[in-house]
């Protein structure tokens, strides 16, 4: 998301002014054990690492448990409407390329009602970070099936079990022309989560991060195995990928994957299984907010253009 796209050099800025606490808003109101807490901490750490000015940072969200996110940070925030975080963020970044923009979405928010914007945001490749907090359920509205709910898992709208196989947000994103950064991480792997956000932030373009997120209230069983047994998780490793020594030590299943290989990324995403890491990265794609950037103007410039136009329409 910055102008540089090096994935190395994740050290903190030399002259630390803001501490993590400087980014903290009111106490987060998620349930105890909710994975959203851990994403919030990682975001605070990211803000501090990069010493982002709170007033130059905007977190945009939709509606859902996860979309309460901006309220718990001391940056500018836009808690929007359900499914529409991405058009709002696009507007913010188009208007103000000087701001750092993050979008936080739930799985219903992004993959169901917001699906068209999601597809198109990947195309636009606006320079921002998009976080999908995927708890495989509609949390806030109390347990309805979401597009990522595992087949057979019962909910209040599909009490006999979810009818469809779950949508794979990674493969959908990877199917969209112009995808430039696609990664997956998990709330219970805080080091990996942080490293992923950091890589996403450093990416110049639209960085899409799916975060597997625990919801102890409605989908407690879903990630339990993976949380309890690190061997159930495979970590993608590569020199061009996301590096985190702690994660790689805890999860001993490693898979070498070159994130510049789109076909391999798609195949990997398709296979399913629980894999954390950078699936795809192409730092060369043009960013819409850059290609569309127009020079500033003074009122006099505008008056000159208006006069030209009025001349063209003169009687």
């Amino acid at each position: 998301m910055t102008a540089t796209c090096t994935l190395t050099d994740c050290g903190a800025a030399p002259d630390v002014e803001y501490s993590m606490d400087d980014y903290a808003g009111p106490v987060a109101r998620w349930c105890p054990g909710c994975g959203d807490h851990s994403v919030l901490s990682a975001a605070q750490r990211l803000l501090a690492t990069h010493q982002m000015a709170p007033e130059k940072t905007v977190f945009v969200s939709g509606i859902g448990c996860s979309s309460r996110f901006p309220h718990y940070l001391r940056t500018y925030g836009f808690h929007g409407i359900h499914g529409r975080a991405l058009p709002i963020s696009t507007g913010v970044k188009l208007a103000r390329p000087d701001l750092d923009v993050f979008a936080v979405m739930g799985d219903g928010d992004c993959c169901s009602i917001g699906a068209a914007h999601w597809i198109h945001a990947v195309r636009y490749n606006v320079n921002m970070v998009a976080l999908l907090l995927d708890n495989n359920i509609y949390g806030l509205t109390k347990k309805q099936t979401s597009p990522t709910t595992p087949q057979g898992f019962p909910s209040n709208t599909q009490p006999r079990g979810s009818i469809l196989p779950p949508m794979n947000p990674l493969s959908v994103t990877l199917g969209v022309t112009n995808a430039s950064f696609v990664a997956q991480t998990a709330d219970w792997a805080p080091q990996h989560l942080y490293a992923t956000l950091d890589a996403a932030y450093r990416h110049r373009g639209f960085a899409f991060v799916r975060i597997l997120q625990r919801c102890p209230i409605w989908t407690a069983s879903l990630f339990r195995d993976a949380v309890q047994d690190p061997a159930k998780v495979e970590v993608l490793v590569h020199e061009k990928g996301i590096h985190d020594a702690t994660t790689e030590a805890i999860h001993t299943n490693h898979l070498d994957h070159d994130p510049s290989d789109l076909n391999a990324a798609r195949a990997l995403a398709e296979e399913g299984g629980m894999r954390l890491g950078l699936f795809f990265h192409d730092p060369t794609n043009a960013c819409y907010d850059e290609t569309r950037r127009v020079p500033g103007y003074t009122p006099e410039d505008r008056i000159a253009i208006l006069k030209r136009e009025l001349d063209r329409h003169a009687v």
Partner: protein
Amino acid sequence: MTTPTSAPVAAGVLAPESTQVLHVREHCVEVVSDSGEGAQKCGQSFGAVSAKMGNGVWTVEIIPAEIQPPARTPASASGVRIRLGTQAITNWGDHAELVVAFNEQVLLSRHRQEALADDAVILIESMWAEHDNDSIRAAWNAAMEELSARNYRIILVPMEERCLTVVDDPRRGKNMFVFGLLAAIYGRDTERCKAQIAYAFRKKKPEIYERNAELFDLGCAWARENLPFRVEVATEPYTDDMVVMNGNTALGMSAIAAGMDLCSMYPITPATSVSHYLSEVFEDAGGIVHQAEDEIAAVGVAIGASFAGKVAFTVTSGPGLALKTEFLGLAAMTEVPLVVVDVQRGGPSTGLPTKVEQSDLLAVLYGQPGDAPKVVIAPSTIEECFHVLITARRIAEAFRCVVYVLTDANLATGVQPFPRPKPDSNWMAGPPDQDPVPEGARPYDWDDRTGLSRRFIPGQAGGMYTLTGLVHDEDSKVRYATGVNQRGCDMRSRKIAVLQSTLQPPKTHGESHGDVLVVGWGSTRGTIEEAVDRLVSEGHAVSSANLTFLSPLEPGLKDLFARFRSVMTVEVNFSDEKDAPYITDENRRRGQLCTLLRAQTLVDIDCWTRVPGQPLRPADVADAIRANVRSVTADANGDPS
């Protein structure tokens, strides 16, 4: 010169010396061809030259439903009506008095729509009468038969034949020949016409201009030699510099003049041409046109940009407006300044995409679930289209609210000259405030009396807050406690009353008291005023008032209405007919402004509304007012009514 029969019709035979010159203060002419034959370019060029020569002008496009409907069918009729006057012309008038038709089928379409005066003069391509193809000849004869019901004066013009002397494919050339005909008939200045042709083909190779200029000359010459009449619509030289354009171009310029930064839209007829115009010129002026994936995203991007401190607007029409409903509720709730332009079109649902209607007023006012107060402005002339976004932008920012601008297909494509505006840097927004927020300031620090508050913009240190569409307090914190929603609703609504307190009562067109007051809004203004003038000239005590602000309503309406014995609205939207089966005073569904005014003033306002898919005609409006005058007078005389 012959009256129409199914037999071949003679071409103009009178020698030029017997030429009659018709001196009129206004005249109405139509050019109509198959879609793709260029009648619009011809008519618009003629209109522009007429305006430049000092005539009042109003042009209306005749648009077919399909991109390329089958040739030689009534559905293919494409063209333009140009109404010229010595003084300003504000509407398309009643009937065309002169028609140039490229074939008899497109002519039939106009005839069937009652577009032509009973004694209209018709200039029509002669080739079809004697065509090799039997069925074409038969169609021609049938058409002439049908047309003979009227007193049209039909003159055959060998357009194809003449054009073939210059081009191989006269389908791409007849239109400039016809421009020549019109120039000769109305005595248009040749130099100006040539300049207009050059402008029309400015993106093409020079040869193209040459050829079209030649065709133009050919048309002039043929008319001079063969047509026994001329029309002279006296011109009154402009005292001001003038410009001429359609309403959508005017809106585009208005966006630039208002200092807008972003136009975020999704294509939809008849709004899209605003963005077409802007796409050409906006980037030169520091602006962006963003075509979003749908209307929801279009308004979302605009709201995001506005939150971030830039001045954004979105432009759409009915179906697109419908899709923006939810987001517009968020904007109202969170007090994001935003301008929404709705170029209204015909019919409910997809309806009549290219046709005029004024049916979105109540949807704009009441569309959002929950209470979402807003400002609604309707310009009534092309000139007002040029200025409206300046006002709208200013109100949106000063009042932190959504301002809707309602225009319609008639303003969008109507072309009219008006005094050249003098762009002013005060019309434009300044750059977003990036100074730190004063200690203790709050993002919704509503003034208790006015509901107004200062807006925080990202980049302002100390101003960090999270905007939310949930019920929130002065700090923009979500709060569900009793009283919080009431207070927010109060403050947002109050601003509308404050704005109202700054407005002037509407002026009447005509006397400020009398028998009947006709109230209208938007593009019908010219038509209503012309109808009122006719009634006044017949001796009736009739006036009209045009409302520019629909929310808040301008002050003084009740007083104004009290000065007339009867008040009626005239609108291009639907109402039940009073005397239709099952319709009673109790269940009648009335015109949209009428409904609004009744609720607000409790005056028994009647309405005359139509949804014909075309602009209202002064004559029909005059008839409707006349009926109202009659019933008022009858009531006053104690006649049974």
